[in-house]
């Protein structure tokens, strides 16, 4: 800039000082600031309560309506229905949690705050990783609340003990984390919350009811049983359930966790890429 024509140098800046540009933040700082932002939702009861209450309500309904399932022949002997049901609920709650990540992202893409982040000198992936971390933490809290409610109100107390149930929570949370990336990739692609919701609803419905979540797969009609046996959700539910019931199968748990990691490895780069492009 030439010395003579610079009108900014000589002019006094009464209110708006022009400090040096900040040096920029590292990726870790970006992620922690952004996940902190998303977690602030925790301070707003209106945003958190439905997420906690809905599964508890569902639990009440299902544990009463399907109670008689435990009398059928396919049902494992000596297991109470609530002990059988709750691990499945942890897993299915994670589908909703994953969907919530995607919906939240589309909402923010439409209200403009994402555009602001994208026009800033930060890494695009930080926005998604920040959301993923925040939602995973939130999901963890929801699961533990559900666990506590089930134990206190419905007499949940499987043979696996506290550790087994925490193991089930871990499986569910890891699954929720990976589905979060699937739905974020989808949301960057469809861009509209109202388009994502029904997709999520259908996915939820199919993965959930065509599985061993509520009744043993053996008790389903043939065609449905065939699907339920290959449904990845059945594996996650089996993994969580076996952990909770105190008969963990290392192979099923590892297969479930491994699948989740593969899902994230594939969908996370896709999510970041389509997110960068979407305007």
């Amino acid at each position, binding site marked *: *800039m*030439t010395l003579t024509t610079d*009108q*900014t140098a000589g*002019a006094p*800046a009464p*209110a*708006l*000082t*022009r*400090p*040096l*540009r*900040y*040096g*920029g*933040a590292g990726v870790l*700082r*970006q992620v922690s*600031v*952004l996940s902190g*932002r998303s977690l*602030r*939702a925790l301070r*707003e009861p209106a*945003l958190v309560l439905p997420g906690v209450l809905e599964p508890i309500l569902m639990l009440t309904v299902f544990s009463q309506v399907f109670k008689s399932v435990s009398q059928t022949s396919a049902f494992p002997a000596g297991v109470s229905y609530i002990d059988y049901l709750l691990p499945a609920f942890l897993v299915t709650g994670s589908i909703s949690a994953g969907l919530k990540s995607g919906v939240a992202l589309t909402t923010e893409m439409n*209200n*403009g*705050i994402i*555009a*602001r*982040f*994208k*026009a*800033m*000198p*930060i890494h695009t992936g930080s926005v998604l990783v920040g959301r993923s971390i925040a939602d995973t933490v939130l999901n963890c809290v929801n699961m533990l609340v559900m666990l506590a409610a089930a134990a206190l109100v419905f007499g949940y107390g499987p043979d696996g003990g506290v550790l087994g149930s925490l193991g089930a929570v871990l499986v569910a949370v890891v699954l929720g984390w990976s589905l979060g990336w699937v739905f974020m990739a989808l949301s960057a692609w469809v861009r509209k919350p109202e388009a994502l919701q029904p997709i999520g609803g259908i996915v939820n419905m199919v993965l959930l009811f065509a599985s061993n979540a509520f009744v043993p797969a053996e008790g389903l009609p043939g065609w449905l049983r065939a699907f339920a046996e290959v449904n990845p959700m059945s594996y996650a539910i089996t993994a969580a359930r076996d952990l909770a019931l105190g008969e963990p199968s290392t192979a099923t748990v590892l297969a479930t966790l491994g699948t989740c990691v593969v899902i994230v490895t594939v969908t996370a780069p896709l999510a970041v890429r389509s997110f960068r492009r979407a*305007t």
Partner: protein
Amino acid sequence: MDTPMIELTDVTKAFGSTKALDGVSLTVPHGTVLGLLGHNGAGKTTLVGILSTLALPTSGQARVAGVDVVRHPEEVRRRIGLTGQYAAVDETLSGHANLLLIARLLGATRAQAASRAEELLELFSLTDAAHRAVKNYSGGMRRRLDLAASLVGDPDVIFLDEPTTGLDPTARRALWDVVQRLVREGTTVLLTTQYLEEADVLADSITVLSAGRVVASGTAEELKNRIGHRSVSVTVRGADDRELAAAALRRAGLSPAHEDDGLVLTMPVRDSTAVAQVVRATDEAGVDLAGLAFCEPSLDDVYMALNHSDGR
């Protein structure tokens, strides 16, 4: 340094077979305001999207502060601020927390971020509302916070995409004041608007976009001279006077016109010296005028004329 702060060369943006931008070129010198006028769908927002690295041009070149937006988007992002229908703030957070968030993301320490937030809240008269959630802000307050958020990193160039759409006149004027202040301090601004008055007040030069093309550009004054019509209108006290005055004005070489029973005679003129001519003619005819007005063309006239010639 005379590098233009914004420079577009033959930029095209196609969505399928439709061209949102069709060969747009423009430059904005350092420390000036370019007003980008156009209807919805004229391509204004697409253009801002490309300049702020949110979208890629299909062809052509775009530079901000001398940096190519396609090749070095991360460098461009260090130099710009984006405000408007595109960029918003977090509604669940307070104004203070929003500014803190942006500052921290830009690498400010906690202390730096807090002092920058307070400084900007003060500048935008938001200090009293600093700790209230943004969702309880009025429209004007929210726009001011939007603009404040774009200024945290002290950008060289800011994009204001329809910054006052939906604001009441007082809030609009308050925002204009801040923009004018920023420009005085050396910031370069690209402003898109549908409000011609806004472009007239804020912009050093104006570019009119229509269907993705630049259909006119120049200063407000130049556009008015080129396209608009200046006129003089006189108000008389009765139908008899109107006929007398009309005859006298015609004799003076003017072409007055009026509504059927109206008492206002309006005639196109070349410039304000015609006012004297009008007064002389009516005075000689013995007509006592109830009113006299010289009308500059508004940008609305310019806008209408351009879009008419464009076949709209």
